[in-house]
């Protein structure tokens, strides 16, 4: 036994080494889903720093590298920052410093999303997203943009200065162990910021607003419904009048060249005979690609179409000076996409909202002009069916010759797993997105370098419409409706960006990649939709078609993805009907829950029902509708009946066709029947108002009238609501069906806000998008009054720290339709000031 003692001691020591080594490893690297435990939980530099960092700023002097003169940053009680810089360079350094101080994790997440590096920190669940981004190539675009900037380019200089400010914070936080807690819990440190990262963040926004899947959906519909019915129900031009803001006259000119577009033999644009069939191989490719895109993070691609902006000149306002309003509708998250900031520097004086990662404001005002944006919704994404052949592996046929695809090799790093190799093939049209069945590439305007930052810097410095319009000449993507108002009394609107024109073919479907349907240019800048000081004294956009049906260029279809125009109708009616407008009037309109479509359809419905002998719950529900004010208020029972009715009405009308022709809603959720089908809303509206008896026969040929289907849908509605909300229609309030939620950007439940009952619907001015628990809507509400106070509010807070008082402090005001001043009051004392010395 004694002889065995050394062995036991050895085993004992080995066990101690293994256990200690394991603990050290767990402390330094983490185990399984657990973060590095030592780094994450030690009381000095672990997650606990979140508590200390949640304290609001106090007045102090801080160090910041790179400054040439002292800079002062003041904060008001809501967290809005006011930068006072003596040089432009110092302004951008301070912008970077502020963004990184309050939103560093958000910035890192945004760049990772665009650079295809999410899997590196969250594991294999993000591989699909990373693959898609590497294919699409936001980083390639960003690198090309950066390479294309000269050393004296103001955008390049601003990006470099901004980067200094961001990296100041990263360096300081790393040295002091004060990085945001989510870095510690995910077990990584952010790499240093680069100007290309900023350009990738710009690409993220472009993708969200501009990358569309319309041709994929059309292909699936044509395969199911056939071409004729698809185009009848999802036509290029809408059934309803959408209050276009540019009424013409229009002039058709030759396409303007698109920068960086592959050279192609110019040809006369021609209409083609309709494509009747979608092949099996094409269907397979479209299906695969649709599945990939459907699996992307919710805000990677914006399917909705909800933003408003409007301006009125002095003849319509109480002050006699112009007013402007803007509320861009985006995915609503906490932290929000916006960071509010004001600045005063030699060349820049502005107030508005910026996106963390970008060195400027996108929406706001300077001392002379104000502007806001909505999405144009034009088709900026064309899909190409490449001709490939097994005898020419790795090649595609274009313009009668075989060309080698360019290949780019990636390795997607995966946390807790092996890196995934990825080869991206590039054709003359763009990246190949799938080779399942049919090789399909995508030509997306957002993939082309677009000097947006330079354009916005010029906008911020502009003092009149001429400068404003000139600044936006080089804005390529995402196409945006830039509304404008100035102190001098003018209003304007221009829909800047690229509108691709194809040589031939129907761009709403996947196009042949043989060279016959290539993009040959864009609508010339002078011919894009625009207006200046119109005789109506008002201008507005709400994602409706900007032009009348006489416009000589193709800009997109009803499905891809213009709004149905009901918000535009509402805004038009309100602005036309009022004079001596004030901030309160604009605020009321931005928060308006009046449903324009309901005001058209409900009288038809109640009229139809009046000929029926309704009893009991049906009769009560009818009475509620008859006395309803068409407002989607949280407390309204009529709102619940209307919305459920409209949903059923659509399903009853089109559902039999969807079932008979097997429309693949399981593959593409965007094809599911519901009020978000804007083209079908318009069809149904037209059918109901025109009272056409035969428009929507059943697949077996049986005719139906709109009254038949309305009556059926109404009874279904009452039955459905009785089951879900009880027998008393008076208690069927909209808030019991409909909620809003602001999920966390990192998709962590506990960090989100809501859900809570809410008013609004898809097409109220105060829009609520994303289903019965809406997660998209007004992401920022701004009112600029050149004769009074300018105001703004967004649903969130300035800090991404969930313990901070500024994490979600603006949500209550946003919810209640209240606003905060864009600039501090003259006698206002800042909450705190940071003084930075060089």
């Amino acid at each position: 036994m004694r002889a065995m003692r050394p062995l036991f001691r050895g085993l004992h020591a080995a066990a101690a080494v293994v256990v200690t080594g394991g603990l050290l490893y767990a402390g330094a690297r983490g185990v399984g889903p657990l973060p590095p435990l030592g780094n994450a939980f030690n009381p000095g530099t672990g997650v606990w720093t979140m508590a200390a960092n949640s304290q609001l700023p106090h007045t102090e002097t801080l160090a910041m590298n790179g400054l040439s003169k002292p800079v002062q940053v003041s904060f008001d009680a809501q967290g809005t920052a006011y930068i006072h810089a003596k040089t432009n360079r110092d302004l951008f350094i301070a912008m970077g410093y502020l963004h990184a101080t309050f939103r560093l994790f958000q910035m890192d997440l945004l760049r990772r999303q665009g650079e295809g590096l999410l899997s590196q920190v969250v594991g294999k669940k993000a591989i699909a997203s990373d693959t898609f981004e590497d294919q699409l190539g936001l980083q390639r675009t960003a690198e090309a943009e950066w390479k294309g900037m000269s050393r004296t380019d103001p955008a390049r200089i601003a990006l470099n200065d901004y980067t200094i400010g961001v990296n100041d914070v990263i360096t300081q936080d790393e040295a002091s162990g004060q990085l945001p807690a989510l870095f510690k819990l995910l077990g990584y440190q952010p790499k240093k910021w680069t100007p290309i990262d900023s350009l990738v963040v710009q690409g993220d926004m472009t993708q969200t607003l501009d990358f569309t899947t319309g041709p994929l959906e059309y292909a699936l519909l044509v395969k199911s419904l056939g071409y004729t019915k698809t185009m009848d129900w999802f036509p290029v031009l809408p059934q309803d009048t959408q209050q276009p803001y540019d009424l013409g006259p229009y002039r058709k000119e030759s396409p303007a060249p698109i920068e960086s577009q592959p050279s192609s033999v110019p040809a006369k644009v021609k209409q083609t005979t309709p494509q009747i069939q979608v092949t099996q191989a094409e269907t397979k490719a479209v299906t695969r690609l649709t599945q990939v895109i459907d699996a992307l993070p919710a805000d990677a691609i914006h399917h909705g179409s909800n933003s408003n902006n409007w301006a009125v000149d002095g003849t319509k306002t109480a002050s006699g000076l112009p007013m402007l309003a803007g509320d861009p509708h985006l995915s609503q998250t906490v932290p929000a996409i916006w960071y509010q900031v004001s600045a005063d520097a030699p060349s820049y004086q502005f107030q508005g909202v910026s996106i963390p990662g970008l060195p400027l404001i996108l929406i706001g005002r300077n001392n002379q002009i104000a502007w806001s944006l909505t999405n144009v919704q034009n088709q900026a994404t064309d899909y190409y069916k490449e001709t490939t052949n097994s005898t020419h592996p790795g090649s595609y046929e274009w313009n009668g010759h075989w060309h080698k695809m360019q290949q780019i090799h990636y390795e997607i790093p995966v946390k807790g797993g092996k890196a995934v190799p990825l080869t991206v093939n590039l054709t003359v049209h763009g990246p190949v997105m799938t080779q399942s069945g049919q090789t399909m590439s995508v030509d997306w305007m957002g993939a082309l370098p677009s000097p947006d930052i330079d354009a916005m810097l010029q906008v911020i410095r502009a003092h009149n419409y001429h400068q404003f319009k000139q600044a936006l000449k080089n804005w390529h993507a995402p196409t945006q409706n830039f509304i404008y108002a100035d102190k001098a009394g003018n209003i304007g609107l221009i829909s800047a960006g690229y509108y691709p024109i194809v040589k031939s073919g129907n761009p709403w479907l996947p196009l042949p990649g043989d060279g016959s349907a290539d993009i040959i240019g864009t609508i010339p800048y002078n011919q894009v939709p625009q207006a200046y000081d119109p005789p109506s004294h008002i201008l507005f956009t709400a994602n409706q078609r900007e032009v009348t049906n006489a416009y000589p260029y193709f800009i997109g279809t009803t499905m891809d993805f213009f709004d149905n125009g009901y918000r535009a109708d509402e805004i038009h009616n309100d602005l036309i009907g009022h004079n001596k407008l004030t901030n309160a009037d604009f605020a009321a309109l931005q928060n308006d829950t009046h449903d324009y479509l309901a005001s058209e359809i409900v009288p038809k419905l109640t009229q139809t029902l009046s000929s029926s002998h309704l009893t009991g719950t049906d009769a009560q529900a009818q009475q509620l509708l008859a006395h309803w004010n068409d407002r989607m208020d949280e407390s309204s029972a009529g709102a619940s009946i209307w919305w459920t009715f409209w949903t059923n009405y659509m399903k009853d009308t089109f559902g039999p066709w969807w079932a008979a022709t097997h429309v693949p809603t399981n593959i593409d959720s965007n094809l599911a029947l519901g009020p978000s089908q804007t083209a079908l809303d318009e069809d149904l509206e037209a059918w109901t108002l025109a009272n056409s008896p035969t428009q929507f026969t059943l697949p077996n040929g049986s005719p139906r009238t709109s009254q038949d289907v309305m009556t059926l849908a109404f009874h279904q509605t009452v039955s459905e609501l009785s089951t879900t909300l009880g027998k008393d229609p008076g208690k069927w309030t909209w808030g019991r069906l409909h909620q809003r939620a602001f999920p966390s950007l990192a998709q962590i439940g506990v960090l989100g806000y809501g859900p809570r009952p809410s008013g609004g619907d898809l097409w109220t001015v105060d829009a609520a998008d994303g289903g019965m628990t809406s997660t998209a809507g007004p992401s920022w509400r701004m009112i600029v009054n050149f004769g009074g106070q300018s105001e703004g509010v967004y649903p969130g807070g300035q800090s991404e720290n969930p313990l901070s008082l500024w994490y979600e402090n603006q949500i209550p005001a946003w919810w209640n339709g209240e606003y905060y001043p864009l600039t501090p009051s003259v006698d206002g004392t800042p909450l705190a000031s940071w003084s930075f010395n060089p």
Partner: protein
Amino acid sequence: METSKWMWMVWLLVGIELAITWVGNHLGLWYVAFAISIANGFVLRRTITAMWASYIACIGGWGLALAWQALFAPIGRTATIVAGIMGLGSHGIIVIVLALLLPFLFATSGTWLAKALSRIARPPSSQADRLSD
């Protein structure tokens, strides 16, 4: 050496170690707890003494630092948020317990490792075995 004097020296040592652990953590050196426990295992002959010294230095170095911060910052709410992020619901207490369990484990394993290695280097006599164990 007199027992009481020796005890004072052990307490002094533990106090210094606690301070080193505290400061180490604020420099991000969470593994200082290991190093101290290993040192205790080698320096303090009695295993029970070495263990207690390590526990006090490590758990104290972590726990007191947290308690001190809690006087000025919302440490409890931080724990609740972190629990939510980690999928533990709103049970912030689990995060606090985890934060204190770690120095306990570091102290235990560090001291154990030192004792195990020192026995290989210097096999104890039967008498010494009884005294130290």
